[in-house]
């Protein structure tokens, strides 16, 4: 018997560009196929993020072992300041791999059916325990020994949070992907987006944040309104403090931050949280005040109505289908609906609040090192890995890291200015596994789009249906994206959950990375705006201000104004 899929091909080392030398700490790392993770980390990352990578990688190892998946790990690491990820397969024979794949499908299938219950009854209470530990910790009052103890505990608990993260998200992601496949097989690929209508309109932590902010905006009286709309976001608070109604509003604003402000714009540890710097919140408030009719609660209710109507239609068209097929559809629907809520909710607690607390612990070390003269400023702490920090503060006096920080900054500036390679390491033999898990990963991270024959058309993947024409606003970070105006099309590398409020402003979204299950696509569908995702090159090919037309169902971007005609 021959098996064409198993056609042996030797691993091929990928030549590193001359200006991008790669130092491997272990030979095994050089053997992996590292792919640039632009989706989560479009820009260079700080050395402190190694702490996140450590937790993330352990989290995947935990989930893959728990579900007996044929993968050992999905690892993230920093290479010359950029985040790369690689899949680490288990060392198994072809047959062992197939047998394990079957067990994994069974385990994941069972897990996805009870993920909401598992989260609510077991995982979320544990997550809240960990968060409470940090909330209760007295960072400033701790002795150095206590702080070192706290750092060890932080490492342990954060790793545990990421184990929980992937224990929840691996089956959840698969549920979304399997539901999409089931829907497409039953009703045809041309109706693929209708599948997502059935998942929309459920309240989650993200919609809760938006609705609370909209209510806060509604509570502003005429004076407060005028102040917020007419003042630079950075100066608003000081101005409001001058009036009675302003102070009342500030108190509500403070409550809002306490409830929802433990987050920043990315997974990075070097960005201030909303509590530290509420400028993004003032910007969003301004947006709400200028759009008093855009009630997110009413919008959510509208999406829910739309969902229920679509569901009634879908169920009617399943009449006469074999019962096992109907049962399968209903089970997948439930798992995917739960998954749609969980994929927002877990991020609120783990990705954002967890990172917020870790950042606070790091900043406390930064404060002490800066006081001792071992750092130039508190913020410089993110230019060090936690191990470097610990090694420094275990000495008396603290080891001076200012020189190292300077060197790191120079390196980051150097590598940040050049075009990093898409892949490094060793290209793996054989095609990627064609199984439900492999397909789910493709739908999340995206697969390369088909090349376009028409130079005025850029191909990506269908992310959210609809056609819209508008001015492109190219933004590689959330702060760059703040200037986007109503009716413009946001063109970006990727969007993180903190970008969500922007989707209420823009007319459409184009991303470089991601597939139909990526954050940008999910949120665009929730907001009912067209999205084309995974174009790879939109932010490099499309000029800021260029007129474009996007077709979110076909996954194409047309350059209405030719690039060559632009000045």
């Amino acid at each position: 018997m021959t098996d064409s899929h198993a056609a042996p091909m030797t691993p091929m080392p990928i030549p590193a560009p001359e200006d991008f030398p790669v130092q491997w700490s272990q030979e095994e790392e050089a053997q992996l196929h590292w792919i640039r993770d632009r989706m989560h980390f479009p820009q260079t990352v700080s050395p402190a993020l190694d702490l996140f990578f450590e937790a993330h990688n352990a989290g995947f190892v935990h989930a893959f072992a728990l579900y007996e998946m044929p993968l050992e790990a999905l690892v993230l690491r920093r290479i010359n300041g950029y985040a790369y990820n690689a899949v680490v397969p288990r060392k198994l024979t072809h047959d062992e791999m197939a047998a394990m794949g079957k067990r994994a499908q069974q385990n994941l299938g069972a897990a996805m059916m009870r993920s909401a219950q598992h989260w609510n009854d077991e995982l979320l209470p544990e997550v809240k325990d960990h968060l409470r530990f940090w909330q209760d910790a007295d960072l400033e009052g701790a002795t150095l020994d206590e702080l070192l103890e706290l750092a060890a505990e932080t490492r342990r608990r954060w790793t545990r949070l990421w184990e929980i993260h992937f224990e929840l998200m691996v089956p959840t992601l698969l549920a979304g992907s399997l539901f999409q496949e089931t829907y497409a097989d039953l009703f045809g690929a041309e109706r693929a987006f209708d599948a997502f209508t059935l998942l929309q309109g459920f309240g989650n932590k993200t919609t809760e944040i938006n609705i609370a902010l909209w209510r806060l905006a509604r509570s502003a009286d005429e004076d407060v309104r005028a102040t917020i709309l007419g003042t630079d976001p950075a100066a608003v608070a000081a101005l409001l403090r001058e009036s009675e109604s302003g102070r009342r509003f500030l108190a509500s604003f403070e409550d809002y931050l306490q409830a929802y402000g433990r987050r920043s714009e990315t997974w990075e540890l070097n960005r201030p949280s909303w509590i530290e710097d509420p400028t993004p919140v003032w910007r969003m408030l301004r947006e709400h005040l200028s759009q008093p009719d855009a009630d997110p609660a009413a919008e959510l209710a509208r999406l829910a109505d739309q969902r229920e109507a679509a569901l009634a239609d879908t169920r009617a068209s399943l009449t006469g289908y074999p019962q096992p097929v109907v049962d399968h559809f209903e089970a997948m629907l439930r798992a995917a609906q739960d998954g749609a809520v969980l994929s927002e909710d877990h991020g609120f607690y783990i990705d954002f609040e967890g990172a917020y607390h870790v950042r606070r612990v790091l900043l406390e070390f930064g404060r002490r090192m800066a006081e001792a003269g071992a750092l130039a400023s508190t913020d410089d702490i993110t230019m060090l890995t936690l191990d470097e920090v610990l090694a420094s503060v275990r000495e008396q006096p603290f080891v001076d890291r200012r020189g190292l920080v300077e060197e790191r900054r120079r390196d980051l500036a150097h590598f940040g200015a050049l075009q990093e390679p898409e892949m490094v390491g060793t290209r793996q033999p054989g095609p990627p596994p064609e199984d439900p898990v492999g397909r789910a990963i493709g739908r999340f991270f995206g697969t390369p789009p088909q090349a376009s024959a028409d130079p005025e058309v850029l191909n990506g993947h269908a992310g959210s249906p609809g056609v819209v024409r508008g001015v492109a606003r190219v933004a590689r970070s959330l702060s760059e994206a703040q200037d986007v105006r109503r009716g413009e099309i946001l063109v970006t590398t990727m969007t993180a959950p903190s970008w969500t409020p922007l989707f209420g402003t823009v007319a459409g979204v184009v991303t470089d990375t991601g597939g139909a299950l990526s954050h940008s696509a999910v949120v665009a569908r929730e907001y009912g705006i067209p999205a084309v995702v995974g174009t790879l090159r939109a932010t490099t090919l499309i000029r800021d201000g260029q007129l474009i037309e996007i077709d979110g169902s076909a996954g194409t971007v047309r350059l209405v104004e030719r690039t060559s005609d632009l000045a």
Partner: protein
Amino acid sequence: MDVPVDIVWFGEERSRDITLVGGKAASLSLLAAHHRVPPGFCLTTAAYDAWDRTARPAHRPAQPPLPRSLHTKLRDAYAELGRRCGADPLRVAVRSSAIDEDGAAASFAGQHETFLNIVGVDAVTEALIGCWSSGRSQRALAYREGSGLDANGIHLAVLVQQLVPADAAAVVFSADPVSGRRDEVVIDANFGLGESIVGGSVTPDAYRVDKRSGAVVDRSIGSKAVMHIPVPGGTREIPVPRPLRTQPALTDEQCTSCADLACSLETEMGHPVDIECAFHDGQLYLLQCRAITRLPTDPNETRASDRDGEPDTGYDRHETRRQPHQA
């Protein structure tokens, strides 16, 4: 019989007259006494003859319309079947049932038309004429000739039966038609109607059930890329959802039920049988039962014969030697 009978019901004495209703209908009618067969009636060979005569001799159209009196009887019978099944309008299967058919000599498999999920008296009429016309198709005539049957003696009855909107369907052999083994029941199954299995449009699941214990001894999950479902006016082939393809179409319990049914039919008939059956709403329906044609010699028996020095007894002569598993 003085007046030719156009329509007979399952359960009526005359519905077991093979010359009147054809092999398939006679067999099903007989089986309906002891098994769950979807209710139905037959348009007899006499009805066929009446229709066949309408346009004789010179300008015979390919598909002459139904004589008025026959149409009235068909309309009434269809309405009555709807009442018996408690459905209005009733979805039915309209199947050909030829004389000679389902005999041991030739299977006629697939030679005559079957129309599934037919709703309304007009559609039933159309399907009926379609069945009758198929008896005169080139393909059917060639088959008859090849099988040594009389090409002029076409007598085609048609069966109108409640359609079972199958959750899963199976073709069950009470002996292995490939190896000839008599101690295992072989089952092919898929989700939806049985067409995908019979028509060979998928690799179905394949199960083997031990006759004595009723246990599933082997299971191979087929790729089952598509299934057939009833849609208004017929059936449609649609993909089985990818995540469902790796799941078995039948539970072990359902496999055992299928095997039990095949074994008891084998006992009743006195020879190995292949049956078509379907599950709906937890009930197993018998749709068709035939003798297995060209069944190889039982390899177990061959070995026994060799020891005894007896010559190989050849095809189609084996009785079941063990009592099938009975619940």
